[in-house]
């Protein structure tokens, strides 16, 4: 035999008895390697399309949410047809000075810009909360008339992302839009349906004393602080309750909403 003979070696390898240890290990390794390349290749190549899809979906839902708020079309026409975008520093409860919408993704990639939540605070089951969030708002003669707040929390099957719209009093819900969820189809996944979300506008979040009272009811809503629950999806309904309460509370947008209410924003 002259020189290396890769084809012959390959044939000798294939001719090995299947049960030999060497061939077992080699086959296991080869199958894993091929599959790993396949999976990572597909993930990496398709990721840009997928994130574009998600972004487009979120934009479409925000637009639909805005269009669904009574009187918004007129307000938008007056203000030039666009919502203002602001990055909020959640720790201080006001606009962030050093982070812009363009640099938000970079800022959130840094773990130092996240705050860990302990079990008592962590109503929404998030574990940690970003210190910066991008919100949308609309001003009418200087006063904030609508604010759109992105919120998220742990649902029954996975994370739920939504956008909550609050009217100028920062107490009455103007609308809710679920931008991402993986709840059980036909049950919890109905949080996405317009029929259920239509119950949100007009719902109050706090009573006169300022206590958060918002809840997804068990069954039919009994007060102005409640929306109808979804039959067969108690865990998802509770997740929405906790998520809204967390984000409107002191660890979420609470300080910001108080500032807007005082007219300091």
């Amino acid at each position, binding site marked *: 035999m002259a020189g290396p003979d890769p084809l012959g070696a390959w044939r000798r390898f294939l001719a090995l008895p*299947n049960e030999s240890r060497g*061939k077992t290990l080699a*086959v*296991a390794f080869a199958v*894993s390697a091929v599959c790993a390349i396949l999976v990572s290749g597909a993930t990496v190549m398709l990721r840009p399309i*997928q994130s574009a899809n998600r972004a487009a*979906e979120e934009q479409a839902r925000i637009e639909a949410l805005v269009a669904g708020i009574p009187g918004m079309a007129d307000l938008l026409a007056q203000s030039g047809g666009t919502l203002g975008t602001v990055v909020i520093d959640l720790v201080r409860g006001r606009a962030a000075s050093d982070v812009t919408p363009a640099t938000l993704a970079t800022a959130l990639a840094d773990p130092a810009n996240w705050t860990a939540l302990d079990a008592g605070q962590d109503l929404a089951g998030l574990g940690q909360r970003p210190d910066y969030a991008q919100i949308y708002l609309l001003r009418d003669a200087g006063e904030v008339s609508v604010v759109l707040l992105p919120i998220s929390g742990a649902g029954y099957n996975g994370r739920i992302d939504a956008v909550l719209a609050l009217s100028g009093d920062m107490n009455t819900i103007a609308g809710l839009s679920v931008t991402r969820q993986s709840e059980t*189809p*036909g049950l919890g*996944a109905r949080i996405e349906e317009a029929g259920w979300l239509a119950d949100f506008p007009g719902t109050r979040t706090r009573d006169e004393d300022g206590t958060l009272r918002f809840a997804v009811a068990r069954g039919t809503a009994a007060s102005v602080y409640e929306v109808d629950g979804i039959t067969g999806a108690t865990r998802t309904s509770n997740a929405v309750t906790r998520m809204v309460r967390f984000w409107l509370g002191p660890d979420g947008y609470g300080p910001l909403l108080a500032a807007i209410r005082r007219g300091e924003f």
Partner: protein
Amino acid sequence: MPARPSLWTTLTAPLLRENPVTLQILGICSALAVTTSLATALTMAASLTVVLTLAAGLISVIRHHIPDTIRLIVQIVIIASLVIVIDQVLQAWFFEISQALSVFVGLITTNCLVLGRTEAYARHNPPLPSMVDALGNALGYSLILVIIGALRELFGKGELMGLAVLPLADQGGWFTPLSLMLLAPSAFFLLGGLVWAIRTLRPEQAETPEHAPMGRGEPAE
């Protein structure tokens, strides 16, 4: 060597006569979960068809070199990788449907139908018959999914593929939707009814009772 059945028989037998869902009662978990509407049922059926056919082909190609001791894990790894790829493709190009299917595409991995076909058939047969057999079984599964999905969407929402078919009572029509049809139990009822109907028409599919009913007949010994 026994004569191999023709490719046409291999393809058509699993449609009704040896349907994997109604005869072998395989893969019913997903058959229950994704059949709330026809569109999701069709996408799930298409995804499973692609995964099963490709997996059967791949496993059949390397069938002489899969060590027996690790054969199950090798098959599962191949199936799982294909499922992830399909899921990514759906998320990229069929975004809305992939959201409706949510976790169930990932669960194709654990669908006993897929492992059942690769283990029982693809591991012992050349690629072409294996892929034809896989396609036949996947189409049999799809058939059941489409039937149940269509029935559930029609009677649960009065729609087919999202288009109103039966005028709803709350919009001035006469049809009151059966909400039960959108819940998982209705899929059990429909599937059970389907199995019963097929076994009545084809009595050879009925299994012999494993246990004699209590209090009747002869004692065993």
